[in-house]
């Protein structure tokens, strides 16, 4: 796979989505500035290099009247430009932690910070915008939209982030970017195929391209190779590796495969609702 040119292009702020990022950021600044006054966080205990932190996070789920504590005060930090792996047994709360980092869920207590701004207590609309603009997510089961073609799936986040008018104004640059991404993941020949016509590896590549369309700072991956055979899993991993190394994308990956985890820059294990740093 020739990924030198697309990887370079990743570093450039090409899309208007990237421009929008700058519009959104001051708002989050205000919000978190507000939050900092009340909570008086101590950033020195966390590296200033950290991209996303969880500070004393707890989360429990209710199941039939009994409450199951999944996370019991988790401190976690993913450093800027690093690839961090979270491992643990099934049900240990890996995915829960990842969802909390991605603002898909809210912690019962504790705080989530993104680039030193608190994000877990933002209003729903701001969290939606945050997910859309700053985050990329990939999942074990790919989660592509079955009604849309590969290309449409890739540009879906850009469409969600923009009004119809601005979408049409930036359509050509978005499409150009989407095609670059598709080429980078090696699927430029299948742009008009529906997800049902793709293999698992291809679907995961599409999901990666989709996650990257808005030029996020952080990529959250929930067992991205969990459903793939050894070979395609390895190539997906290689793809993530390259993204991390060549464009400095911060990646947090949940996996239960120790081999994959060992390849990452940092490694934490979730056990009994607590986190233990392995690497």
């Amino acid at each position, binding site marked *: 796979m020739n990924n030198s040119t697309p990887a370079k292009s990743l570093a450039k702020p090409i899309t208007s989505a990237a421009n929008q990022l700058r519009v959104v950021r001051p708002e989050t600044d205000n919000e978190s500035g507000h939050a900092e006054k009340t909570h008086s966080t101590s950033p020195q205990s966390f590296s200033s290099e950290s991209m996303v932190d969880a500070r004393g996070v707890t989360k429990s789920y209710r199941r039939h009247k009994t409450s199951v504590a999944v996370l019991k005060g988790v401190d976690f930090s993913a450093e800027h430009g690093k690839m961090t792996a979270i491992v643990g047994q099934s049900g240990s709360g890996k995915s829960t932690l990842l969802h909390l980092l*991605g603002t*898909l*869920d809210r912690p019962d207590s504790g705080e989530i910070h993104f680039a030193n701004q608190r994000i877990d207590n933002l209003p729903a609309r701001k969290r939606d*915008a945050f997910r859309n603009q700053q985050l990329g997510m990939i999942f074990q089961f790919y*989660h592509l939209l079955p*009604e*849309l073609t590969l290309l449409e799936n890739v540009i879906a*986040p850009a469409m969600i982030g923009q009004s119809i008018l601005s979408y049409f104004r930036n359509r050509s640059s978005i499409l150009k970017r989407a095609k670059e991404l598709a080429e980078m993941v090696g699927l430029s020949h299948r742009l008009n195929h529906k997800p049902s016509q793709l293999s698992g590896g291809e679907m995961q590549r599409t999901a990666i391209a*989709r996650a990257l369309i808005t030029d996020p700072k952080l990529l959250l991956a929930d067992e991205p190779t969990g459903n793939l055979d050894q070979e395609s899993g390895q190539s997906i991993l290689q793809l993530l590796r390259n993204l991390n190394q060549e464009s400095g994308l911060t990646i947090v990956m949940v996996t239960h495969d120790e081999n994959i985890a060992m390849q990452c820059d940092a490694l934490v294990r979730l056990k009994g609702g607590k986190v233990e740093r392995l690497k």
Partner: protein
Amino acid sequence: MYKVLLCWRYLKTRWIALASIVSVTLGVATLIVVNSVMDGFTSQMQDRMHGILSDLVVETRATNGIAEPSWYIDRIRARLGDSVDGITTVVTLPAMMTFHHNGNAHTQQINLIGIDQTTYASVSDFSKYLLHPDNKQQLDFILKRNGYAPEREALQPSGWEYRSRVEQLKKDRQTELERYRQLQAKISEEQQTQIAKDSQPLSDSTTDQGADSQAKEDATQQAESNLDLLGGPAIQPIQNGGGGRVFDASVEQRIGIVLGIGIGSVRGRDAEGQVKDYFFIRPGDDVSIAFPNAGSPPRAIDELFTVVDFYESKMSEYDGTFAFVPIEALQRARGMFDPVSKQGAVTSIQIKLARGTDLNSARDSLRDEFPPSESYVQVNSWRDTQGPLLAAVQLETTILNVLLFMIIAVAGFGILATFFMIVVEKTRDIGVLKSLGAPGSGIASIFLGYGVLLGSVGSGVGVLCGLAFVWKINEIARVLEWITGREVFDPTVYYFDTIPTVIHPFTIVWVSIGAVLIAILASVLPSIRAARMHPVEALRYE
């Protein structure tokens, strides 16, 4: 943008939802068909009701009528001013008509209406319902040579052609009868002499001769009844004009009368089931009419009239009872003519209003002008006269609309259920969209938009189907008749050859807006549910 794209993709891939929208389509189509047929019937009926009736009627029940109609007419014109478009005077009477058919005298109750043929056409559509094309132009109460609705075979021959032929037959029958009588007289004379001759020698030939004469008598009777079938017996002329001069019916007519077609004909079916009219009175026949005079107590007077035309308003109530004669004839016969003032009394004054005049306010202002406490006239509009029937039709239309809208509401619940199913089916996609940063409102608007799209498609197709159905309704009725073997639309009942339809654009607009609204309402709940889904749970949904 994703909302529009996803709406569109869902519409193209979720056929189950389109199936649920078929109920909306059917409901809308039915509403449009029912409304246009009902409107068609209503407007036909109103046209017909109004066809013979003028807008406003100033009438009295007094036997001798309004003695000085010109005074009333002046006051009406003064009161209503420019809104009077036409005005005429009328004498209306209950009467009994007698006519002869197949040798029997038939009587029938009718409403005898004396009209001023020069002005009556200005207050109603009366003349356009007449059968003879010349009478449609201007009614003159004179029997025409022929040409009464030539497309109706059952009515041919009629007019003078018919009248003179009937008279000829009557004359022929007279001469025939005369000849038979002479023959009979001659035979009996011969028999007398024969008996006288054969009185002495008693022979068995007597019985033979007796049987012979019996046979001859039978033949005579046979001939007579045959003639009855042809023309009926000669109507004994009731003296009218008189003066010793003999009335020759083959070239002269009595005072003209225009009968409602239902008085003179019956509609039925022949052996093959074809609709056939049978006329037992034709233009050219004489009928005798008994009606009360203007005296107190009223006495019945009898007059002969010659049928000069029929009218067919297709309102059975009018066609079966109304008979029109010239007003002066009635006034003179009843003694309503004042020789001093040269004015005839009338029983009602009929007014046609100018276009756009409010019927009820004009009526009320006339009621003001002629208050019941001071005058003996009543003021009514044609709607008052036919009020109960119009109200019944209105009620029927309203109830049908309510019922049919309930069908669409039922369809709405079908959509609701289908939408909930689709939201459940799309749970994971909703989770994905949320994880990509789509706000709840955006997700709700996907499903709302989907509802709007489905509703629009459903009601749009429904409108098209409904319009097509209305457009081809008579062909469809024919196909249904052919399949079921039962007549959907019986012309012997309705007097229509085709199903009348009227399409009001307004009806189509509100029916389709209503249907789309119901589709939207049905998609609100599922949309809210989709918007409120928790992203993590949605993503985990299997």
